[in-house]
């Protein structure tokens, strides 16, 4: 009897364990590059390979110009785009005498940048809020920064330096700060592009200002500046900060002013290391417990470096473990998985050893693409809109499915939440179901 009970208990436990394993894990993607801003999704139960023709397309909508990625929280999507703003109710026919009698006054639409919320199921827009002036450039107009969703607030940054906190329900502006005025910075050539980081009670943003105002920590509730830190003689770059737990302490990691740098909650430097690539858009990678990877393109020092950091503050020691002229991230960031770094070396997709920097494989033809990790695979979007599923292995480049998802220029990394992929090109947004077993 006891034995039967034991068997039953064991079977029940096994069934529970099996059901726990089989239950797909889903999560939000509340900010740039996911919850930890490292390009890693922890979702499981995704398609291990894609059928011919790719995964099922759920919806597709035109979207105003921009490179802002999609954040996901609570069944809603948040992103930014450029458009025109027509002041409602200003059109009027004014009775005048003489030649101007009956003249109609029509306000010219103003080019602006919007932050917007969309329904994740349908892609339909729920609300939109004007954030600031539209950025016009030779290489693509519109906002670059990705919204960060935190509790009931969405934090956004326009290309002209308009930082705002919006109510998640309707997009009402709770507070706003103009970076150029607050920090005395100037707009970078391609616009303010870093995605704001929200961590605890802080909002961290690249202010781009002179005299110790390269980065800033703001009170996320009020927008009040708590501290500024760092020098960046060239002004704001295009890097986004990441929050990490290093040795039990919360640190904020970024590249600016020719330095790979980590700071603490009060903006004090934990360590810094010279890193002088011409453009360092790619976020650094923290390889616990003490290694840091930095990458950039252009200039004499382009390429990648892996350093080991011991101590902090004035006691900090930074040792270069290896340095390579390749793995030059341009628009997108690399990611770390299983002892290897996957990313775009200018426009060649590569896997390198995190230990030695040794190249494991290379794949050309995907341009300046972008990538995330999910469920044992890499989801890769080429700069011409080809979406690929690639096995996350250092053994060889192994493609497990693809689809031409978008046309035009695609410089925005994929987003994954709830078994669905959300992609955007410069002017279009699309969603795919990548959950195993269909409709997630």
């Amino acid at each position: 009897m006891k034995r039967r009970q034991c068997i039953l208990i064991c079977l029940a436990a096994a069934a529970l364990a099996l059901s726990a394993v089989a239950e797909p894990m889903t999560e939000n993607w509340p900010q740039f590059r996911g919850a930890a801003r490292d390009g890693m999704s922890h979702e499981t139960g995704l398609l291990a390979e894609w059928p011919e023709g790719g995964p099922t397309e759920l919806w597709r909508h035109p979207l105003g110009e921009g490179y802002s990625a999609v954040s996901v929280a609570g069944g809603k999507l948040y992103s930014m785009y450029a458009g025109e703003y027509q002041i409602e109710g200003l059109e009027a026919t004014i009775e005048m005498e003489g030649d101007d009698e009956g003249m109609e006054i029509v306000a010219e639409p103003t080019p602006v940048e919007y932050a917007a919320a969309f329904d994740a199921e349908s892609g339909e827009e729920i609300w939109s809020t004007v954030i600031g002036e539209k950025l016009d450039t030779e290489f693509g107009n519109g906002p670059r920064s990705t919204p960060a969703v935190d509790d009931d607030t969405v934090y956004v940054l326009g290309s002209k330096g308009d930082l705002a906190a919006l109510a998640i329900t309707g997009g009402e502006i709770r507070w706003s700060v103009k970076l150029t005025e607050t920090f005395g910075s100037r707009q970078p050539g391609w616009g303010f592009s870093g995605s704001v980081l929200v961590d605890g009670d802080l909002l961290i943003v690249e202010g781009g200002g002179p005299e110790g105002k390269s980065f800033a920590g703001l009170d996320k509730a009020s927008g009040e500046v708590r501290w500024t830190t760092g020098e960046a003689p060239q002004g704001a770059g295009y890097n986004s900060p990441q929050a990490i737990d290093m040795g039990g302490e919360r640190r904020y990691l970024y590249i600016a002013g020719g330095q790979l740098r980590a700071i603490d909650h009060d903006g004090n430097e934990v360590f810094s290391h010279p890193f002088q690539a011409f453009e360092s858009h790619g976020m650094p990678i923290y390889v616990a417990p003490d290694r840091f990877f930095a990458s950039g393109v252009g200039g004499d020092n382009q390429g990648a470096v892996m350093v080991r950091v011991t101590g902090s503050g004035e006691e900090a020691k930074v040792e270069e473990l290896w340095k390579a002229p390749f793995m030059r991230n341009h628009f997108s960031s690399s990611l770390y998985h299983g002892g290897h770094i996957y990313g775009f070396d200018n426009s060649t997709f590569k896997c390198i050893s995190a230990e030695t920097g040794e190249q494991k494989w290379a794949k050309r033809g995907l341009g300046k693409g972008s990538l995330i990790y999910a469920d044992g695979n890499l989801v890769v979007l080429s700069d011409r809109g080809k979406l690929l599923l690639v096995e996350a292995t250092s053994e060889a480049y192994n493609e497990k499915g693809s689809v031409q998802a978008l046309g035009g220029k695609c410089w925005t990394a994929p987003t994954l939440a709830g078994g669905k992929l959300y992609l955007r090109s410069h002017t279009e947004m699309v969603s795919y179901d990548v959950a195993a077993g269909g409709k997630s």
Partner: protein
Amino acid sequence: MRHRMIRRATVLIAGLILVAAAAPATAETLEAVVGKHIEARGGTDAWKAVETLEVTGTYTAFSQVGPFTMRRARDRRVRLDCHWNEHPVSIGYDGEDAWQINPMFQIAWAQHIRGLDRQVLMLDVDFATPLFDYQDRGYEAELLGAGDVEGQEVIQVKLTRPDGFDETWSLDPETYLEVARDSPGSDFGRPERQRTYFDDFRQVGDLKVPFYVESQWYTRTRVMEADEVTVNVEVDDGVFSVPPPPGMDKLLPMVGEWHVKLEQRPNPGAPWSENERTVTVEPAMGGALLREGLTTSQGVRVENTLTYDQFRGRYVMTSMNDFTSHMDIQEGNFDEETARLTLSNATTGTSWTGFGRTFHERNSYFDITADGFKMEQETSIDGGENWFLNAKMTYTKKTEESDSDAPAGAGED
């Protein structure tokens, strides 16, 4: 002692085995490697039969895809028409002058390519690769041996031009087709190393041609993916030459040596007097400027220039003489209906003042053909309200006959 000798011998043998294992890629001579490369690409005879080559397909720059056409002809002439960021771009080399029309420089007309940019352009003017005839061109070649391109084993050959510019060709050790080329590169004139990858080789008649060519340097990437390669298509030689500057194409027939019949009068009531002379109109600045020099019968030297101001969209003429040392500047437009270029100094502030009057000048060029053209000169003493014709010049192509009775550059003004 014996053990040590055995150990040494073992190490030596192991070393020899290692050397032997590494040897296949490097054991070949430079001539053998180059010969196999040429054979792999179709052989010398097959390429010698190529007069022109046209490649069409898609060109990707700044992550944007557009169509391209590349035409090649003998004497390393080449022309590429593609799009960069939706701007139409043309790049050409006619065997002498390299040029580009690249609106990304905010200039929509042909510019000469010189210096490092020209050296880099010369990387892509061959039908196939410079390994075919590097000796004839005075290049030094060096077999570097085994190498590595993105994890792929290659055999590398370095070519150095007489001017020191070097390019290293990495060849597949099995097919001897090119895998990559490393060379100096240029990003808007700033030196940057460049690597070009060659892939997707396909048979085109007797030739083997890469259908995928990707260049990377600095932050840049350019990808040419061929859809079609056609051999010996008819190509107009003119497509390789520097296109005339906009506006000047209408005036370029005026270039040459001319027999000029000059008719002039000092005032509207005076009879016309006639004179003849020979003048030369020369192009300068790649045809952006026409220059006419002449000496009057009184020995006054006159230098005229004529150009088109592409920013303001109008023609500009300057006329300088060494009698008054006064430079007159005239501006005007070309009337398409009458095919007449009319310029004046009425608004340029360079009119001549004397005898208590201000004299404005107006010049017109018309009937412009390859065989001749006409020019009329008018004067106004009422600020441009009324003009009277005071000189007419008829230019006809200079022949030996016309030359015999007119002194070069001399005449009565």
